[in-house]
C-alpha cells in the first residue's frame, strides 16, 4: 500500500488554458493549478488585444474617436458609439433632436439583442450545443442585416455622430423590421426549447459560477450578471437617457446569481428589447436628425456647397474638430454587458485630453478566479462564457 502511494502522482498540476483555446472565445490566458479536476488556484492574464485605445483617442479629434469605439465591444458597436456621443454631448451641453433620440434607442436595442444572441450562442457552442449556436447566429445575421441597411456596416457601424447621426433610417425600415420579428421569435422559441429545459445544459449552468450580492457589488459587477444576483440596477431605469423613461419595459432579475440566472436574464432581455424597438418605431416623430449648429455637427453637403457660413463651419469642424469647453464629465450608459462609462477630460482644444472608457467586462473578468476556485475545471467554461468577456473591450 505504501508503495502505491509513493508512485501515485498526487501533487498539483499547473495548466495553461489559452491564450487561444477552443473552449474560450476571446484571447485570454488562464494559469490553473489543479488538484485532479478541482481548481485550486487561478490567474487570469488579459491584455492580448491591447491596442492603446486611450492613447489613440488623445491624438485625434472628438469626431474621429467613433471608429475606435466601434472596436471596443464589437458585438454591439452602436452602443459604444452612443455612449461616447452622449458623453461628448454632455460635455458640450447640447441635446439632440427627438427623432435622433428614437433612432438611437432603436439601434441601441438592436445592438443589445445581437450581443445577447452572440453571448448565448457562443456559450451553447462551448457546452456542445451546436444547433442552438447555429439558430442564434442565424438570428444575429437577421439583426445585422437590419443594421447594415441602416448604416452600411454589419459590425463596425460608426453610425452615431456628436449632435446627430450619420444618416436617417432607410425608407421602408419599419416594414423590414416587421418582416423580421416573426423570424426572430421563431428562432428564439427554438433555442428556448433546446436549452432552457435541457438536462445537460441545466447541469452545466445551474449552481456554477454563483456570486453573492455583496461580493458582486464589491467586484463592481453591472449589467445582466449583477441583475442575475437580484440587484435591480439598470441605468435605463435608474438614470434614464435618450427616451427610455417614456418606454414601457421590464427589467428581469435573477435570484441566485449563478450562470443559469445570467442566461435567463439575457433571454428575457432579448424579449424586452424587441418590445422597446416596437414602441420606439411606433412613437418615432418625423423631423431633423441633426442639431442645427454647424460648428458642432457637420452640415449637409448641400449646405456646404451653397452657403458661405456652412462652408466655413465644415472646414473648422473637419480641421480643428469639435471644441467642447474646459471640463470633465462621466457618462454611464447601460450596454449589453453592463455599465459602459465614458470619462472625458477636455482642455478646450479639438482633441480629448483624456478619454477613458469604463469597460463592463474588465472588472468581471477580474472576479473570474474567485468564481472558479474550488470548482471543477469544466465549470470555468460556462462561467467565463456568461461573464461575457469581450477582448476588444477588456483590453482596449
Amino acid at each position, binding site marked *: 500500500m505504501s508503495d502505491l502511494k509513493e508512485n501515485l502522482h498526487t501533487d498539483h498540476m499547473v495548466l495553461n488554458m489559452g491564450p487561444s483555446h477552443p473552449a474560450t472565445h476571446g484571447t485570454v490566458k488562464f494559469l490553473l493549478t489543479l488538484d485532479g479536476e478541482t481548481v485550486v488556484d487561478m490567474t487570469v492574464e*488579459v*491584455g492580448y488585444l491591447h491596442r492603446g485605445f486611450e492613447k*489613440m483617442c488623445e*491624438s485625434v479629434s472628438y469626431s474621429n474617436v467613433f471608429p475606435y469605439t466601434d472596436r471596443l465591444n464589437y458585438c454591439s458597436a452602436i452602443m459604444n458609439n452612443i455612449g461616447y456621443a452622449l458623453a461628448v454631448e454632455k460635455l458640450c451641453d447640447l441635446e439632440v433632436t427627438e427623432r435622433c433620440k428614437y433612432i438611437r434607442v432603436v439601434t441601441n436595442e438592436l445592438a443589445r439583442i445581437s450581443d445577447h444572441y452572440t453571448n448565448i450562442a457562443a456559450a451553447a457552442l462551448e457546452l456542445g450545443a451546436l444547433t442552438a449556436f447555429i439558430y442564434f447566429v442565424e438570428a444575429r445575421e437577421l439583426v445585422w442585416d437590419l443594421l447594415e441597411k441602416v448604416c452600411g456596416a454589419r459590425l463596425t457601424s460608426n453610425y452615431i455622430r456628436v449632435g446627430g447621426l450619420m444618416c436617417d433610417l432607410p425608407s421602408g425600415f419599419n416594414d423590414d423590421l416587421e418582416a423580421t420579428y416573426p423570424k426572430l421569435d421563431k428562432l428564439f422559441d427554438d433555442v428556448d426549447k433546446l436549452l432552457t429545459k435541457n438536462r445537460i445544459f441545466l447541469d452545466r449552468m445551474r449552481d456554477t459560477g454563483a456570486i453573492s450580492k455583496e461580493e458582486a457589488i*464589491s467586484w463592481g459587477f453591472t449589467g445582466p450578471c449583477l441583475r442575475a444576483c437580484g440587484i435591480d440596477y439598470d441605468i435605463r431605469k435608474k438614470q434614464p437617457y435618450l427616451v427610455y423613461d417614456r418606454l414601457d419595459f421590464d427589467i428581469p432579475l435573477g435570484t441566485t446569481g449563478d450562470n443559469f440566472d445570467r442566461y435567463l436574464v439575457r433571454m428575457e432581455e432579448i424579449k424586452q428589447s424587441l418590445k422597446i424597438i416596437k414602441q420606439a418605431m411606433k412613437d418615432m416623430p418625423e423631423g431633423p436628425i441633426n442639431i442645427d449648429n454647424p460648428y458642432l455637427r457637420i452640415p449637409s453637403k448641400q449646405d456646404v456647397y451653397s452657403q458661405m457660413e456652412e462652408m466655413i463651419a465644415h472646414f473648422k469642424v473637419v480641421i480643428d474638430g469639435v471644441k467642447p469647453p474646459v471640463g470633465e464629465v462621466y457618462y454611464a450608459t447601460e450596454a449589453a454587458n453592463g455599465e459602459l462609462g465614458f*470619462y472625458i477630460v477636455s482642455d478646450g482644444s479639438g482633441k480629448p485630453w483624456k478619454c477613458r472608457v469604463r469597460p463592463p467586462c474588465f472588472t468581471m473578468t477580474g472576479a473570474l478566479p474567485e468564481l472558479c476556485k474550488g470548482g471543477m475545471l469544466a465549470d470555468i467554461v460556462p462561467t467565463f462564457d456568461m461573464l461575457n468577456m469581450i477582448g476588444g473591450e477588456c483590453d482596449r
Partner: protein
Amino acid sequence: MDSDQIDKINSKYKGAILDSHDFRGDQTITVQKNVLIELFKFLRDDPELNFKFLMDLTAVDYLNRKDSRFEVVYHFYSLQHNDRLRVKVPISEDDCTIDSVSSLWKTANWYEREVWDLYGIKFNGHPDMRRILLYEEFKGHPLRKDYPINKRQPLIGPLN
C-alpha cells in the same frame, strides 16, 4: 447628490477637501491623499452616503501643472440614493504613490494594476502590483503625456 451631502463630507474632513465643484451635474470633490482610506470608508459605510459601488478608477496626467502632475480619479455610485460622486486625488511626480483601496473594494485590484501599468503610479498595500495590459518587459508608462505616441516596443521584433 445634493449639497447637504457635500457639506457633510466637508464638515467631517475639514481641511482635507481641497476643492469641490459641480459641472454638468457631476459632483466632484478633490481631496488630499493622506485621508483617502478613512474618507472612502466613510463614503461607503455612512447610511446617508452609501457609495457601495466603486464604478471606475483611473488617472489623468496634467503634464504642465507644477506641483501635482497626476490626479487619481474615483467614480462612486450609490445604489440606495441613485447618486454619483467623483473624487480626485492630486499626486506629485516626485512622490508617485497612493494608498491602495483594494482592501475596501475588490474591483480596485485590477483597476489599480491598470493605472500602475499605464501611468506608473504605485499603490501602497496592493497585493499584486504587476502590469496587466502590457508585458513585464515593457519600458515606461504609455499613457503619460511625455510618452511619444509613435514609439514602438514590440516584444518580438519584425520578421526577417
